[in-house]
């Protein structure tokens, strides 16, 4: 029997969340033969967890909104480290991508005149998030999934893990992986590859991310020679569940605050009013009544401080806890129940607007959010950095290798605005699919298969079974998660990051000797051993980048350098694998912004 099965495609898409599905649909529309690899079952990817909505300046609720405001909001939220071309394309194209989803069967909540309803979210000046209650991600992934299953050009491979990318000289030639059910190796040959593998949340102990989010795409690209960018910027979502222990980290949507939810410390003080950053003062309410009116659609009011950007809200929560004003389990209170003072039938209203949150707290924490405040705290949620790509085509620095969605860097800069992820998936998933298709079409025949490289990768993947001594992979994974949580988390300092780096080096060595028992069929120990290598790579990249940025900006906050520094305002952090396998870091200047875009930012204030 052959060592591996071989499949041939024009375009191979790795990852089947929103970005991967959208890319696959687009490549199929360009008459390409498409392979779509899912780490889980189709339709279960992390996109399904997205709750609040997809940001698109359609202006359905407030007609003052347009792409220019959305662009300026995204750049301000990202502290101007964003790839401005991506921020521009995103703001301009998101409305069409949302309308397209509706044409494919998505059923968004409606305005009173029958259009797509849009809600408030942190950092967005106007109500901008198209949504379906608090299950927008499910609606999006199901719509894309249902469309993709009827595209005959798309061949779906479920529950497969990719171990390595295959190359032909400088260009990508496909991927090698295995199916989880039987542990059989597969080679997917392709003329172009789109990475859409999502994030890295599992590098941390407390995270909203599922087991899949182990930095696979970032590592695959890095190992294939592509550049990573801005890896120091990790988003800690301010509101994750913290009690009971088993649910710690599970996301509580920002939509709770969008619908009027407020943050309170143990003394009942609404502490978000205590610290409003200067560059947001003009846009932020200075009293509770104005904030409430804003959430209820009053156009003359400014948004409440709970809807400041996520990096800031998370840090304010950390401050309250650190100074002894936190909740019993080390968080603060998020209260939506209070709106009963403002509106009749508030319980029904909350259940209608936030059904999953009601359900989640009722079932997992035994708490009725219509009567009782939730206990919440920050949770690792998203990485702004990732594979460096061209803003228009989404191609990485490796020919034929594209990246879209969370795995790609650029759009969000130093901090992502809520709601900009779902629209990111659609806008850049489509672009990656389109340009991967063009690349495939213009590149002639498939590259020859490097069977030697494939065999070597298989031997390496199977090595944990061969060992007769060594520890199980779970222990190493748990230690890495604690190491990153404690030393490269929301608040960072030099000594701790230095400690993390030496810790990562030691864990790398241990990971090389882990042993797996049993056989290849659906063996979670083995999968953990393979994921571990990726987690270690991204953890090292995050730590090195964070150490190099001696300032505080967006999602990256340093206790030892608490101020934003102009000296760090003009470059991105690039990480690349050196000739002898060592991780190299470079500060690279951000290309100058086009004048018309500068004018937009100046105009929006």
């Amino acid at each position: 029997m052959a060592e591996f099965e071989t499949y041939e495609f024009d375009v191979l898409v790795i990852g089947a969340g929103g970005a991967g599905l959208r890319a696959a649909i687009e490549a199929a529309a360009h008459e390409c033969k498409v392979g779509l690899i899912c780490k889980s079952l189709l339709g279960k990817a992390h996109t399904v967890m997205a709750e609040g909505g997809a940001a698109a300046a359609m202006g359905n609720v407030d007609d003052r909104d347009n792409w220019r405001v959305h662009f300026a909001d995204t750049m301000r939220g990202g502290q101007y480290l964003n790839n401005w071309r991506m921020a521009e394309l995103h703001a301009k194209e998101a409305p069409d991508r949302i309308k397209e989803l509706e044409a494919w069967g998505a059923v968004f909540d409606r305005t009173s005149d029958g259009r797509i309803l849009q809600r408030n979210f942190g950092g967005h000046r106007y109500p901008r998030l198209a949504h379906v209650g608090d299950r927008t991600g499910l609606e999006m992934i199901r719509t894309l999934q249902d469309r993709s299953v009827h595209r005959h050009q798309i061949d779906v491979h479920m529950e497969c893990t990719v171990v390595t990318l295959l190359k032909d000289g400088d260009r990508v030639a496909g991927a090698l992986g295995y199916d989880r059910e039987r542990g059989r190796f597969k080679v997917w040959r392709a003329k172009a590859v789109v990475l859409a593998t999502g994030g890295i949340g599992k590098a941390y102990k407390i995270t909203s991310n599922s087991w899949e989010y182990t930095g696979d795409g970032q590592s695959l690209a890095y190992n294939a020679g592509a550049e990573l960018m801005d890896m120091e910027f990790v988003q800690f979502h301010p509101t994750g569940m913290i009690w009971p222990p088993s649910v710690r980290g599970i996301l509580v949507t920002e939509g709770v605050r969008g619908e009027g939810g407020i943050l309170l410390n143990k003394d009942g003080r609404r502490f978000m009013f205590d610290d409003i950053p200067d560059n947001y003062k003009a846009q932020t309410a200075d009293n509770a009544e104005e904030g409430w009116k804003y959430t209820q659609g009053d156009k003359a009011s400014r948004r409440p401080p709970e809807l400041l950007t996520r990096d800031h809200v998370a840090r304010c929560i950390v401050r309250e806890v650190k100074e002894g004003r936190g909740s019993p389990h080390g968080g603060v209170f998020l209260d939506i129940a209070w709106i009963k003072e403002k509106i009749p039938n508030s319980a029904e209203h909350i259940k209608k607007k936030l059904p999953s949150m009601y359900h989640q707290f009722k079932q997992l924490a035994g708490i009725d959010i219509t009567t009782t405040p939730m206990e919440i705290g920050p949770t690792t949620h998203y990485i702004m950095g990732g594979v460096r790509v061209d803003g228009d085509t989404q191609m990485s620095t490796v020919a034929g290798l594209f990246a879209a969605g969370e795995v790609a860097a650029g759009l969000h800069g130093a901090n992502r605005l809520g709601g900009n992820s779902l629209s990111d998936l659609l806008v850049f998933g489509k672009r990656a699919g389109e340009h991967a298709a063009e690349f495939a079409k213009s590149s002639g025949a498939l590259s020859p298969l490097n069977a030697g490289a494939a065999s070597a990768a298989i031997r390496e993947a199977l090595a944990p079974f061969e060992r007769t001594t060594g520890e199980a992979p779970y222990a190493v994974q748990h230690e890495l998660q604690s190491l990153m949580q404690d030393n490269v988390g929301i608040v960072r300092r030099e000594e701790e990051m230095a400690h993390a780096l030496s810790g990562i080096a030691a864990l790398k060595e241990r990971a090389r000797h882990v042993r797996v028992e049993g056989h290849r069929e659906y063996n979670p120990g083995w999968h953990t051993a393979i994921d571990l290598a990726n987690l270690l790579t991204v953890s090292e990249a995050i730590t090195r980048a964070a150490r190099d940025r001696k300032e505080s900006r967006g999602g990256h906050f340093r206790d030892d350098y608490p101020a934003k520094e102009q000296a760090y305002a003009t470059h991105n952090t690039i990480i690349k694998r050196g000739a002898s396998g060592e991780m190299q870091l470079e500060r690279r200047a951000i290309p100058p912004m086009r004048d018309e875009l500068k004018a937009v930012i100046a105009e929006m204030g």
Partner: protein
Amino acid sequence: MDKPMQPSSQHTASDAYTAAQAAQTASARRDKRTFSVWRGEGNDGKLVNYTTEVVEGMVVLDAIHQIQSDQANDLAVRWNCKAGKCGSCSAEINGKPSLMCMTRLDELPAEEPVTVEPMRAFPRVRDLVTDVSWNFRVKKTVQEFTPRPPDAQDGTWRMDQADVDRVQEFRKCIECFLCQNVCHVLRDHHKHDEFIGPRFFVHVAALEMHPLDVADRVPQLSAEHGVGYCNITKCCTNVCPEGITITDNAIIPLKERVVDEYFDPIGKLVKIFSRRKQQAK
């Protein structure tokens, strides 16, 4: 009873603080519990007992993960979001089809072992993992969403919230396939070739009742999709973790449409005519 005027924000927060403190004290109690987990490959396997420490608020999936990490590294289990949103961790807990991530241990009788077995309507792969690929093949047989031409000037449509509420209920489905698992037509009579099961009747209903959709999936419903096999015992509705009223809101209306189409030819003509008119608009 609600006291609308009295509680200020400060009040509710400090009440919650006290409650949370009490919960913390309670959680200091650590108990051991035994789990009887089906281990094996294909149809060859048995229940194996594992005893593990449990704390307050734990769900069945937590216990399975703890066992996997400490005692049985190769215990196969499918899961993903751990928040009841992805529908991956379906299993039979004490014989009841449930999501492992949403079943709290304190809901289950403390005095006996918790039994965790794979779903029964699908082939077993290993341990708690079943082969659910049949469901994905079935979906391909349902005609995809087919909208009428846009009716607004901006190239989109107008829909009232009231008209989409019904469809939104169906679209809450997380495809956990528990309804398929519990349906006796599949579970006991193995009619997988003639019957698409409750999940896909919900899917068909969501398309048929979509205000924009103009395709007609009714002929296929009786001819290929076997809607007639359902004898409305509502087992599916009872296990749906999303609380979708599968039988009453999806399957019965579909059965009525089949009856209308086949036994009410005049009604059918009226329907075709009105649909044409709608398309022409």
